[in-house]
């Protein structure tokens, strides 16, 4: 089952913040970190992220479950760099054919892996604590996103669990009509592709009907929309964004101070 509900405890102090503020804070934090390739700044950032996690009401186990695929990618980065690193300075640790592992390579790999984690975590935390309806409301009211587009996307998002059910129904319908793949892997792949295609067709058909239902209730009637639920962007929200910027800046400053800073560009 694909989860579409937020996983955090809703009462947590930071989880309750305005979704736009949370998103902005995550993006600001990530963007500042992108500026460097060294391991120190992201390591500090990860420490900060893990420290504030309880304020978002997320348990470490839940985060680990969402983030584990990142570890596989970390392995990928390591292999890539061992084979293709540009900078092979430093003491040679291993040398075997094309594989040349130096201290410099390892430091770079460590920096990249940490940076990947440090940049990804804020987004994971924000989306794990944000309800799609609230995000759309806040995007419209606080970020001036066009209402028709945000609501259209929100209505479509509601179809996610339905699409999953639909996948099962399509598979059953085919079986009932005598269509299956047996053990043949090629036939399996073909059946998978044709099921995915049927799903897409079904999704578009649903979308067409959903649009009709929305029009039937006056969506896009040219009348200025009102909002039933106000989303407030308060001082505390602005503060959250500012603190995120300051903390990320501080991590960079430390890395400059200890002399490990390596700018991304230049």
């Amino acid at each position, binding site marked *: 089952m694909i989860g579409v509900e937020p996983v955090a405890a809703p009462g947590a102090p930071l989880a309750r913040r305005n979704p736009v503020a949370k998103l902005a804070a995550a993006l600001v934090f990530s963007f500042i970190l992108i500026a460097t390739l060294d391991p120190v700044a992201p390591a500090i950032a990860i420490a900060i992220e893990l420290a504030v996690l309880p304020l978002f009401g997320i348990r470490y186990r839940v985060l680990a479950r969402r983030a584990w695929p990142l570890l596989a990618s970390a392995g990928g980065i390591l292999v890539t760099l061992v084979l293709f690193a540009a900078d092979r300075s430093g003491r040679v640790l291993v040398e075997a054919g094309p594989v040349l592992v130096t201290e410099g390579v390892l430091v770079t790999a460590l920096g990249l892996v940490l940076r990947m984690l440090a940049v990804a975590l804020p987004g994971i935390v924000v989306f794990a604590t944000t309800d799609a309806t609230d995000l759309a409301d806040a995007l419209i009211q606080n970020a001036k996103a066009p209402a028709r587009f945000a609501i259209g996307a929100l209505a479509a998002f509601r179809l996610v669990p*339905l699409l999953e059910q639909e996948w099962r129904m399509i598979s059953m319908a085919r079986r*009932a009509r005598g269509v*299956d793949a047996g053990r043949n892997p090629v036939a399996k792949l073909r059946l998978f592709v044709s099921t995915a295609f049927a799903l897409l067709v079904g999704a578009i058909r649903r979308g067409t009907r*959903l649009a009709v239902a*929305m029009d*039937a*209730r006056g969506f896009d009637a040219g*009348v200025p929309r009102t909002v*039933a639920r106000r989303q407030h962007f308060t001082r505390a929200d602005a503060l959250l964004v500012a603190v995120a910027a300051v903390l990320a800046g501080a991590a960079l400053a430390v890395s400059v101070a200890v002399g490990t800073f390596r700018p991304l560009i230049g």
Partner: protein
Amino acid sequence: MSAVELRGFGWRHAGRKGWAVRGVDLRIEAGERVLLLGPSGAGKSTLLAALAGLLPEDSGTQEGTIEIDGLDPRKARERVGVVFQDPETQLVMARCGDDVAFGLENRGVPGAEIWPRVDEALRRVGFPYHRGRPTAALSGGEQQRLALAGALALRPGLLLLDEPTANLDPAGATLIRQAVRDALDADTTLILVEHRVAEALPLVDRVVVLEAGGGVRADGPPDAVFAAHGDALADAGVWVPGRAVPPRRAAAPAGEPLITAGRLGLPPRLAPTDLRVRAGEALAVLGPNGAGKSTLALLLGGLLRPGTGTVTAGADLAGPDAGTPPHRWRAPALARRIGSVFQDPEHQFVTNTVFDELALGPRRTGQPEAAVRSTVDGLLERLRLARLAGANPYTLSGGEARRLSVATALATAPRLLICDEPTFGQDRRTWLELVDLLAELRDAGHGVVAVTHDPDFVAALADRTVTLTRPGTGDRP
């Protein structure tokens, strides 16, 4: 409080040669309550869509005029509320309250007034939950009520309801009808489409019958219409109240068991159930919404793996696969032996034309092309789908789609046929034809299992019934 006026109105959907509805002259005064009748495919749903302003100019050709209070319906949408047959496609938001509020926001109702109006609409339809409940957690009947609340919150002058009780159990259908009656303001105009006339009559004071080829066949107060045209209307397919349908009992006693379920269940959808179907027997499965009837049908059909208990196919049905449960059979063998008709016809379609849809099963099970043709043509003719052979299954009317899905399962003449709500949305004529087809199959020694909410169908065809209760509660909330 809106009046409707049609003059020579007609609509032809893009890609179709025939008119969906044509030559309709009709005037409905403000505050009238109208039951719109007509055979399946006569264009009732199309007419409602036109009145709701939901037929875009680029999706077909119009003839004549259609007006609401003198306006083009596309420009009078704020006067009209509509509830379609399928509630799932009408809910827009993820939370119940938001969904009702959606229409109010669109109309620019001031923020402070929205929630009181939402609460009022939910109360009027007897919605049992808090407005924060996820719409995904509602049963079909509850979704239907929520959709009705969404329409009523807008205080429409004209309310359009298209078979609002299809697929509901009798208790749920009564609740919806009560909700409509209690929730309507005295001056709201109502147009209701419903095949089962007797249940709908208390809601209306006028009946309009559409003719299949075009035009209005009868119009007036219900008593007068049925007294004057009763026989002719019944022949044309209208469910004229008080006219019984002939029973089709089994001609011979039932034979070998075809399939046996022992403590069959799938928690939490279906509680353990025992049942047996024999050759030459029709078994009806009854029970309230959410009792697990559709789940049982899928389990018996070899499409779901049982959670608990067993499904055992008799030697006659299983052939070389004796000893293996149906859900492990290869698909072509399964399709030859057990036919399944899904509750939602659209879940079942896998091709792009009505003809291919019917031909798929016979072709898959290896019949020669000539035999395929004659089977398909015969079914098309009997179920009045012949003129739609080239149409896309997804563009059919509600009743046509249902008949097609039953026909696809009949096409392979399986030893055991399992159908989920085979008769919903049918006019009297197509209903009788469906019952005849199923009765013929049974009398030829096949087994028939039908999940149904339709008491007439049970009375006419079923040799035995099984009634499921909701797992856990045993009743509705």
